[in-house]
Structure formats: C-alpha cells, structure tokens
C-alpha cells in the first residue's frame, strides 16, 4: 500500500507525489512539480537546501506570497531578487508589512509590475505604492500591524478567525463585523494564508529548524506557519543537531525549503535606513 492510500481522505494541503516531489498549484489549478528532494523517498532525510532559482520557480503567476520583513530588515532580499528574473512571478498578491522601500526589496518587484495586490500595514514609506495605486495598477488592503500579524498567526494555527479591539470605531472597521464581548467592542478578523512564504532567518539546520537575528525576526516566524510552501533564506546552514532545541524559534515541520542568502543588509546598506518612517 502506498501513500496514495492515505492521500484521498486526508486533509493534506501539501501533496507529495509518488517520487517524493512536492506539488504546488499553478495559476490554473494544475499541479506543477516542485524541485526534487532526493532522498526523501529513499528513506534518508535529505537536506531541505535548494538553490535560489529552484525556490524562485515555486512562485507562479497569481501566487499569494507572504514576504517577511519590516521595511528591508528581515526581508528575503535574495529570493526577491530572483523573482525579478522569473517569468512566472507576476500578478502576485503580497502579504507583507510594507512593499519594501522605493526601488528596493519588494519595492523593486512593484516597479517591475509584478505585484497586483498588496496586503500590509504601512505603505506610506514607499511613495511608489501610492502612485501605482492611484494609477489603478495596484490594489491595496490596509490592516493594522497587530491585526496583520495575528491574522497570519491564526492562518498558521488553523483558527477560523479572532476578535480584536484594534480598529473599532475607525474607517478600517467600515462594513466589518463588530461584536460586543463582555461589554467591549471587537472587530472580527479572518485568518490570512498564502500559497508560499518567503522568509528570512539567521541559521537553519538541514532539517529546517530556524533561528533569527535581532529585529530581523519580525513577521518571519509567523509567516513560516501560514503558507502551503515555506522557503527560508538564511545566513548560515548548519548540520541537524547543531542548534540547541531550546533556542529553535521555528521548528522544522513548518519549513519546506532552505536557501542560502546572497544579499544581506550590510552596514553599507545604511542609506536604506534613511527611509525612516513608521512600521
């Protein structure tokens, strides 16, 4: 009896074909094969490390993509760069706190007209967002930052939604469900999930356990839980068993693939930080 036996009735969101290759829905709902993970079906757990190109190929036309980061800090700049040269990465919906910075990170994908919809909390720091939005090229959905983070967590945690006080009585609550609970008003918020999450971490072991670096952590651990396929871009890849089990922030079951970062925010990236502005 093969795995096929338990796929039909299962609630699996990720399907694995007989040869161990993970399948991902493309734009038309057709299944496309993700890069082969040799060894998975041979019994040995192979490393989850793949190339940047293989990772970029996982993003298809119309994909909903969660992208970690607060501005450029904690943003998977290598993966974003790779999407620039990917024909398939177009018509994307991004779920990300910002749309990068002007011409940088996701901001560059925006200039290349690869993003058609952005869900986030703070686009003000990138004037290109306003411009594209007024041009009618970019649909935006603005969510308070805490609600954004909580909705992503809820998506990863299998919840149907939650109630938050944030936003009650504001324009962002217009047309939304408000409920009184124990004498206080709350807004109902549904979970957010994505086809793929591109996150930035510090260290990964070959199983996919992750640690983060300072405030580059931000949305990354939340997004690691809430997508069909999760790719982590990291500074360093170490052998399984190297990370202290007490210090792992994202346990490996959440992570599908690991790529090594080629672009990092060096201190020479100082000018990036000139774009000060609220989260």
């Amino acid at each position: 009896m093969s795995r096929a036996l338990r796929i039909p009735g299962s609630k699996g969101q990720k399907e694995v074909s007989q040869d161990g290759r993970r399948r991902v829905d493309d734009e038309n709902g057709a299944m496309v094969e993700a890069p082969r993970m040799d060894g998975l079906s041979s019994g040995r757990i192979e490393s989850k490390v793949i190339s940047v190109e293989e990772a970029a190929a996982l993003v298809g036309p119309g994909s909903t993509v969660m992208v970690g980061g607060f501005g450029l800090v904690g943003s998977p700049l290598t993966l974003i760069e790779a999407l620039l040269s990917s024909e398939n990465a177009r018509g994307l919906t991004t779920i990300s706190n910002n749309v990068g910075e002007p011409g940088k990170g996701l901001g560059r994908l925006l200039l290349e007209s690869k993003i058609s919809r952005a869900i986030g909390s703070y686009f003000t720091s990138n004037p290109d967002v306003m411009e594209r939005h007024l041009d009618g090229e970019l649909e935006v959905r603005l969510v308070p930052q805490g609600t954004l983070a909580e909705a992503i967590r809820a998506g990863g945690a299998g919840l149907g939604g939650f109630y938050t006080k944030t936003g009650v009585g504001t324009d962002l609550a217009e047309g939304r469900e408000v409920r009184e609970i124990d004498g206080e008003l709350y807004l109902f918020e549904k979970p957010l999930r994505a086809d793929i999450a591109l996150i930035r971490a510090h260290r990964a072991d070959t199983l996919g356990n992750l640690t983060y670096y300072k405030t580059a952590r931000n949305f990354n651990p939340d997004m690691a839980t809430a997508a069909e396929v999760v790719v982590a871009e990291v500074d360093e890849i170490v052998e399984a068993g190297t990370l202290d089990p007490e210090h792992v922030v994202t346990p490996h079951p959440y992570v599908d693939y690991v790529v090594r970062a080629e672009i990092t925010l060096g201190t020479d990236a100082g000018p990036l930080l000139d774009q000060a502005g609220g989260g």
Partner: protein
Amino acid sequence: MNSVMHDIARRVAQHLEPGDVINLGIGLPTLVADHVPEGVKVFLHTENGMVGAGPTPEPEKVDPQLINAGKLPVTEDVGAAYFSSSESFAMIRGGHVSVAVLGVLQVDRLGRIANWAIPGKPILGVGGAMDLLVGAKTVIVATTHLTKKGEPKIVEECSFPLTGARPADLIVTEHATFSVDEEGLVLEEIAPDSTLEWVRSHTPVPFRNSAALEAV
C-alpha cells in the same frame, strides 16, 4: 503489550513516509514508534511541546522533565525543538503534523471516532484528542478489531461520544486495513492470517472492497 498490539502497530507503521511528523496517541499507538521501517526517518511530535522526541531512555538516564504526552520519559532526537502548549496546538490545528495515530473505543461506518469518553460517567478528560483529530493531515486509527469482550469496535453508529466530526483516513486492525472516503469504509487489505469472511462477519457495517483487492 501483547503481540497483537505490536502486529497492529507494525501494520500502521508501514504507512509512514520519510519526513513525516507524527503524533502517537497513548497506549497502542505509542508502539508504532518501535516499528517504523528501516530507513524511514520520521519525527515524533508530542503535544506537551516538542518535536523530535526520541526513544525511551535507560532508567538511569531518565530526565524527569523530558516527557511525552503520555507522561512517559523520552529523549531528544537530533534536530529536536521545544515550544509552548499554544504553539504546539497551533502546529497541530494548522495542519503541520503529517500523521496522528489514535486509539479508539469505537469507529463508525463513516470513519468517525469515539475515543475520549464513556457514556453515563462524568467526562473528566479530553486532553489533545479532539485537536489531533481535527488538525492532523492524516488520521490513522490503530485498534484491535474487537473489544476485550469480543464486540466489534467498528460500528454502525458510535454509542460512545464522538471525538469530532472529522473521519479518520485509515483504520488499521490486526485483521484488516480500511481507508475512508465520503461514502464510508473501503477494505484495502486483509491480514495474511485472516480472511475476508472473518472480516465481514466481525465488521457490522457496509464496506466496499478496494480496486486492488478486487483484482486479487
């Protein structure tokens, strides 16, 4: 546990695949860990807050603060990680556990299970059973075909309280393996030392034979 239990556990373990994150219920399901096929590396998730639980330690190496959800001592496998209860169940409900192996009191003709309460008694324990049932990507029931009194555990309708609305995906006994689809049970395999007749006469619900079985 006796050899029948180990037999069932072995049959369940055949369905595990390399890389699976599995959660084993208390009792019989725990035995599955002993029968994972050679070369198949799986990761044990335990809902009290760990992935990568390793085998039972030697008595002198027991760490009393390192236990599984059955409150039995375990060890740290390579690549383990610890997390809080809310994170553990976020992982379960969010579909990040590949396979939950659950024991049952009963399972009905649609594959729905009862494994947490006995009618007529105050219900004083549920633990993680309901969360695992709704959250695991695949749910495998591991059970003896009959109760100790010789009554079928696969029944038309559960007389014990249901653990949830979600049906199991696979039911494995020492006599047979059934898969479950929208219409009910499909007999996938008969154990080498059992017969279709035995299974039919001890499974008082309608079931179909799988295409593979028909072809035999």
